[in-house]
């Protein structure tokens, strides 16, 4: 599922400092969980490389706020741009 995959990718972008399980269980702010700007940039790169989706935080300020926000953002763009 996309939500679980994104949770794993968030964890990897942060060098495993936050576990995917924590991210799935928390549901709140990713920054409050410890997602740094550096990790956020790595995450955007990974989503672009692995899923072919450009994360547009300018158009959608919620995109990196929470796991659910990110899932909705990526899901919306996956359906719009079939690859």
């Amino acid at each position, binding site marked *: 599922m996309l939500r679980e995959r994104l949770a794993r990718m968030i964890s990897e972008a942060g060098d495993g400092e936050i576990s995917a399980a924590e991210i799935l269980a928390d549901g709140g702010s990713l*920054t409050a969980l410890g997602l*740094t*700007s550096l990790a956020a*940039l*790595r995450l955007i790169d990974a989503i672009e490389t692995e899923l072919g989706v450009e994360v547009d*935080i300018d158009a959608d300020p919620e995109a990196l706020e929470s796991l659910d926000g990110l899932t909705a953002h990526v899901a919306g763009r996956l359906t719009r741009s079939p690859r």
Partner: protein
Amino acid sequence: MTAAGAVRAPVTVAFAGARGGESSLTWGQAQIWRAIRLMGAGECFLNRPWVLPVHGRRDLATVLDALRVLLERHESLRTTFADTPAGAVQRVARHGELPVTVVDAEHAAAEGERPRDLAARIAGELARTPFAHAEEPPLRCAVVTRGGRPMALAFAFSHLAADAWALDLLAAEWRSLLAGESLPPPAWQPMDQAAFEAGYVCAARCARAVEYWRSALRDVPLDVFDFPPGEPDDPRFVEVVMESPALAVAAELLAARWTISTTSVLLGACATVLAGVAGRSRAVMQLVTANRRDPRISRMVGTAGQDGLFLLDLPETGLTQPGLTQPGLTQPGLTHSGLTQPGLTQPGLTHSGPTQPGLTPAGLAGICRAAHRRALVAYRNAHYDPAAMDAMRAEIGLLRGREPDLDAFFNDRRAIGGWPNRPAVATAAELAVLAGKTRTRVSGAWPGVRFKAFFTVGTATHTGELHLLTDTAYLRREAAESMLRQAENLLVGAAAEILEEGA
């Protein structure tokens, strides 16, 4: 002999690395190469004075050998640079020698100067001469000894050889080498980076960044400030530093409360102050960006930083008063920032006075959260070929009559996000007392560094160290000082309200 009267003796460190060669510049090198050309007489601004301590009892031979290992490991430290008909190139010397001066600190010690402080002073001296990049190694070094024992190394690095990130990498390796540990060979050097940047992944990244900048540059103001320049001071560019433990306390508290980084908190405050002085509701700044998120580049000694473009729209708060930015404000004694904020530059009011009218803590939270997002966008579009960016900017210049002036900057030099050695504060009253300890002073002056306003967060861990370099034709020293105080007031005021709520 030095200014301190210390005795100096020359030695050399011979090195033999695993690889030599020539390649095009990395994008980070190209950006610094361009900046050196633009700065002219002010180019020494880009040199990095730096000190490495020598912990434990090590003899001179051990210390020089550790230095040899650093030179052999990192191609960046044995690279010269030259313009060729095909463009600028980096040339890595496989073999060579680095001249090192050994400075005896006895004389300085007799006058009460510690070896570390002497090393810092020597590093400053070494950095005051431009590098002859085509002939000279990109670093200069002196070993400060006392009683024959090395106490510290003083360096000046060309910014072409190392950025702040690289210096942190070298400091960590230095500790390991002096402890006798062996290190794995570096996997990624600037010549590897230059080859990577010539590939398709980076071509796509560059194209995206150039498009982001292009769309922004179509409608940003053509000037940093609308008011005309006045008579500048000599030297024209002055840097003021504010040392404020209260700023550190406030930034950490607000970052935790607003779930953003302390960088974004400081950036939001600086952008607000700059927009206020400019009389605008949008801040336009370049962000010095580390460009180190790729794991290979994160371990590369070299220079990778480039500039990102940061745009932040601010709510109408009464902070901006465009009517006040009129000609004539550059007369000596008048400060632009003072006039956009009546009262704030009067002695006594710059500090303990209320936060800016119309900007509530909630309003400031919104600004700093937006700054956090906008900074991510800027960082993401900060890895590009400077030549491609220059070509686009020239096109914009043709369209708009001239290129927009983007010489307002923000740079956070810290490697860590907080201030681990800052004082602890529990109440608004304690924060107010701490705010009384804030000091400002002039920290440097240069003849030509081109910036209109350049905020830098320094690396002190016990106090909030915020620098502001200004072009005195637009912002005199007093204005720079007032702007730093305003940034502090914004954050300390918001933090005090949060502490009061919690009391």
